């Protein structure tokens, strides 16, 4: 059996892959969940259609990164997976139900069932909201470092604020995506709500950092993070007013994601189950991690390749195209 542990720090490499997969997931499914969060505020059917049509061909592929993240965690760090996942039973189950709701709402929206797209829009919105919130709750619970306490309850102040942070972050991603796609005619509405969502995100992440950050060693990094966030927020606000196809805004939101995520990483490292197991103590066997790493490295270029191809095909924001297969 091939054993890569002789050549590199295998658990660290696998952890890097997990972080990469989660990051890609957050960016990709983040924007289609974000579209779900903001769709309820769409002022007209035209806006609704524009939002839905922009995500219809790609949401299924985006969601796959979530399965990848879960499976990779299961395969590479089984001890962590088997401890954390049952502790997060309720938020995970609620998230799964909401994921089903989101998928079904998107799937049935285009079918002329019940002749009432409002119901599907509502289900889509609520499901996206719940999924985003629960993912925030899960992140907050893991970051709190209190999961192994007897008194642990998943619904607490920190996890709720974390939930709101993720909801607003995903909404920002949705906004960034729609600006990037430059869907016909929705630009002014998107820019209008973007200010409120940005404000909510900044409030939420500041509240989160305030409640959570208690470790003196991290104050410097936290200040740097806050500084970068404020700069990006300012640049994002400026980019909003730029009418031309704005990939700038989308990239800036992605920077928000990377920054928020780096906060998570800085606090987690080297723990994967705070504060009991590190990535080295929770690892799978060397042979398993070796096969995992090789499979991931081999397959990723293909996955990224054909995913980019699919995005490229749908790049021309054709408002009509996703209705054709009725």
């Amino acid at each position, binding site marked *: 059996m091939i054993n890569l542990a002789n050549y590199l720090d295998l658990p660290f490499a696998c952890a890097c892959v997990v972080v990469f997969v989660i990051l890609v997931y957050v960016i990709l499914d983040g924007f289609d969940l974000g579209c779900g969060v903001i769709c309820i505020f769409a002022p007209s059917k035209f806006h609704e259609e524009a939002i839905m049509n922009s995500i*219809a061909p790609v949401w*299924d592929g985006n969601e796959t990164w979530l399965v990848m993240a879960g499976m990779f965690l299961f395969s590479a760090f089984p001890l962590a997976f088997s401890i954390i996942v049952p502790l997060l*039973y309720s938020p995970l189950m609620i998230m799964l139900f909401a994921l089903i709701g989101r998928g079904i709402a998107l799937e049935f929206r285009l079918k002329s069932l019940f002749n009432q797209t409002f119901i599907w829009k509502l289900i889509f919105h609520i499901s996206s909201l719940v999924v985003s919130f629960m993912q925030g709750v899960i992140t907050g619970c893991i970051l709190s470092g209190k999961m192994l306490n007897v008194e642990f309850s998943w619904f607490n102040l920190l996890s709720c604020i974390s939930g709101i942070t993720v909801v607003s972050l995903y909404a920002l991603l949705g906004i960034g995506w729609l600006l990037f796609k430059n869907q016909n005619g929705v630009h002014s509405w998107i820019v209008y709500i973007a200010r409120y969502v940005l404000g909510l995100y900044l409030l939420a992440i500041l509240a989160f950092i305030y409640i959570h950050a208690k470790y003196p060693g991290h104050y410097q990094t936290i200040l740097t993070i806050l500084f970068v966030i404020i700069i990006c927020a300012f640049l994002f606000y400026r980019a909003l007013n730029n009418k031309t196809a704005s990939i700038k805004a989308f990239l800036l939101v992605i920077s928000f994601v990377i920054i928020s995520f780096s906060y998570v990483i800085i606090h987690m490292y080297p723990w994967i189950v705070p504060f009991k197991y590190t990535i080295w103590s929770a690892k799978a066997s060397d042979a*398993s991690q070796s096969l995992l790493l090789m499979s991931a490295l081999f397959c990723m270029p293909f996955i990224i390749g054909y995913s980019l191809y699919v995005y490229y095909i749908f790049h021309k924001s054709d408002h009509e195209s996703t209705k054709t297969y009725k």
Partner: protein
Amino acid sequence: MVFDTLLLARLQFAFTISFHIIFPSITIGLSFWLAIIEFLSLTTGKQIYVNIYKMWIKIFSICFTIGVLSGIVMSYQIGTNWSLFSLKISNVLGPLFSLEVLTAFFLEASFLGIMLFGWNKVSPRMHFVATCMVALGTSLSAFWILSANSWMQTPNGFRIADDGIFYPVHWWKIIFNPSFLVRYFHTVIASHFTTSFIILGVASYYIVKQKFLNEAKILFRTAGVIAALSSILQPMLGDIHGLNSLTHQPLKVSAMEGIWNTESPAAFRIFAIPNNKQEKNDFEFKIPYLSSLILTHSLNGKILGLKEWKKEDRPNVTVVFLAFRVMVGIGLAMLVTVIISIILYCQNKLFQSNIIHYWYILMSPCGLIAVLAGWIVTEVGRQPFTVYGLLKTQDSVSIVDNVKVLHSLLGFVVIYSILFVIAIYYIFSVITKGPVNIGTKHNM
């Protein structure tokens, strides 16, 4: 019966996986058939194939999406409810599940977008490639999942450490474990067989209603060939599967056959109701020598009786025995239907409304029932183990409050039931609307 965490977790898993398996069983066969239809549309250039494709892709889309969503549930359930199992076997099975996502799941989920929405955005050839990629993805998914599932039945290529954790020793032996290939082909052909009968049921509906007759003929010809080939292959694969199980899981075979005491030669019980408590069969009706003939291909083959094994190591014989008969019974009925259809086709009577069309309409979901029955045989037959002979189910379950599991179980029952009803309602509306020409905008 105590509704403890173990029982509730088992009920939840049984329910969610049964719901889930319906959809890949349809999509594996349907994606393959859609590729054939699209190929025919490209080579003949006829609009009728396009119309058929565009109608059936709506059905495919629903089944695929529900399959994906219920599949995501399975991948997280392995952690929420079966965390001890996860901990002990992830070194061995983890990479297999990850490879499934990396090679198959991404492929089918990504190209589905082009398949559904890419009509005017890519060339007709590229669209056909997308359809083929989705079909390939579904079969590749089945490959890895069945490899993992077969390893749980006939584990190989591993060692167990003192702490009870399984470690991989030889990847080829893990992936290509003794029962994998036969179970893989048996499952894939089952999917083709199942889907062909669904398509034939719809075609028969059109013939009975005397509408879309040309389309119905195409459905009959294409799905009919698949049904005919499957009806030959599936019994053969079932036979090989039986031989394989006799070698590696003789206890399961004895349960399937309802043989309590070692018999040489062994009779075949056409019908019985096995009595787990009294370790005998009630209302037994049997044919002598037949079990030996089927299982060992000789008239004197010895089949061990269930009593040769400890009672606590045996599965629920009643369930395994009856489910097996349901599966085989339906399979035989499908085979007979195919034979009669071929005879009628040769007499040029197949496309006139006939009693066989009503039979096809009735039989259209029967493949799914057979698939479910078959899975019940193999999975309930594996009990009380999760890894056959090595890891018991009771040692695999998560330590979670049983009230939580009850809530999640109820949640799944409610959501899946609503989903099922909506999906059926929609699929029926697509079928009754039929393969109409949608418009000239979508020439291929």
